[in-house]
């Protein structure tokens, strides 16, 4: 890549207590890129995302955003640096209205005009959210909740949007709609780092992909090239395609 990365991760190690989950993860996201991370359950994807938003302090390695090292940074520092994390399971504030959920995304911003404009932009992007803005977020369907969660992330005006499990538990129609929206968001210049269990969906969406297995990056490259790579079948089903047949 010729552009300098906006997010770069070098030899990251992390875990919970003495349980090591990430052994050695290095990756880069350039400005405006759409990158996906694929790997099986337990490979360390969510742990990686938690490190990238400051929820978990890595035990070794470094995270650099826009040239600034993020050692000891709090989640708020990550938000300020331009990272927004849409967590696995959406984690909306369920008994709070949709509008208030979106406004929570802009918690650290003080530009009232910009916040109002972004709110309108999100409502335009997801009209259903505008329609139901006074309802509690918990009343939304799964797909709508994911829209709200992505909208909440975008309200922080991020430069990189982290999305953990875009399609988990959602109907195919909703996934298509969300994927389409992510393309549009990406086209406005927001880089996206996506963790996704539906391999083909992820690879069709992304420019580049990383395969993570047992806390290590085992493969990376242009997304389309990876689709037919045997490493993917192995990472997901623990079996190579040859063994499957």
């Amino acid at each position, binding site marked *: 890549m010729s552009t300098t990365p906006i997010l770069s991760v070098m030899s990251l190690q992390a875990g919970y207590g*003495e*349980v090591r*989950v990430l052994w050695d993860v290095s990756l880069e996201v350039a400005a405006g890129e759409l990158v996906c991370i694929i790997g*099986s*359950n*337990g490979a360390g994807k969510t742990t990686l995302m938690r490190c990238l938003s400051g929820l978990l302090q890595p035990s070794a390695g470094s995270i650099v955003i826009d040239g600034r090292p993020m050692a000891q940074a709090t989640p708020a520092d990550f938000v300020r640096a331009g990272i927004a994390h849409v967590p696995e399971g959406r984690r909306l504030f369920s008994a709070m209205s949709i509008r208030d959920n979106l406004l929570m995304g802009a918690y650290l911003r003080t530009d009232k005009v910009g916040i109002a404009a972004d709110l309108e932009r999100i409502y335009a992007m997801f009209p259903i959210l505008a329609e139901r803005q006074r309802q509690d977020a918990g009343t939304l369907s799964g797909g709508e909740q994911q829209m709200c969660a992505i909208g909440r992330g975008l309200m922080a005006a991020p430069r990189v949007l982290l999305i953990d499990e875009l399609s*988990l*538990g959602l109907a*195919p129609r909703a996934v298509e709609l969300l994927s389409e929206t992510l393309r549009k968001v990406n086209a406005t210049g927001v880089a996206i780092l996506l963790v996704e*269990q*539906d*391999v*083909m*969906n992820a690879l*069709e969406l992304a420019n580049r992909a990383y395969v993570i297995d*047992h806390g290590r990056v085992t493969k990376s490259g242009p997304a389309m090239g990876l*689709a037919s790579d045997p490493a*993917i*079948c192995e990472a*997901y*089903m*623990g*079996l190579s*395609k040859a*063994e*499957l*047949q």
Partner: protein
Amino acid sequence: MTALLTLDGVSRRFGGLKAVDDVSFDVNESEIVGLIGPNGSGKTTLINLITGVHPATAGHVHFDGHDITRQRPYRIARLGLARTFQIVQPFPRMTVVENVAAGALFCGHASDVREARAIAREHLEFTGLADMADRPAATLTLARRKRLELAKSLAMRPRLLMLDEVNAGLNPTEIEEALAIIRKIAEQGVTIIVIEHLMKVVLSISHRLVVLHHGQLIAQGTPRKVVADKRVIEAYLGAKYAAGNPGVSN
């Protein structure tokens, strides 16, 4: 063959979410059954229903002739149904030998604490943890804690043992060791249900597979048949992947 465990239309809702939806299958005596499915498919919830941690909202579970559908967990355990947890749950500040002794004391056949400790030491021998016996459980590595879970469950003298992701987070050598122990347990005639996301592991030890997806049972049968099933591949890798790789579908 007689069924040791029978699930009949078992369901569990959490609010509007059907975590387990009308699941029925049998497990026969001395069988090793692999329970598989992608992330979030309801495997652990199903185990929780069988062991009484959550009551089923519909359906029945029978174990060895007893209806255990809405029994308290400790009663089900005393009938001979033991489990390990995906997130290992030792008694952290008790020693390794005490953890295992607890299984022997309350569910196995130890008559007092002293005897339970003696029995526990045998199981620690069996699982290769004898050296660690007097250390607090919380100080063990993950791999050893998983083995401790096994030892604790074995001390309960189960007839049916359910292993929830005993290999998650382990490296290949540790997995081999764990599998060897599971095979030894099976040789003693204990019926085993293995929850596992590593297909290779499941295939190598299971007699039969049961596949869950979105809380529903989508396939069951011999391992070879199940892994070639189109719905199973869809569940794991997505519909598009399955469609684009006709070689693996039937």
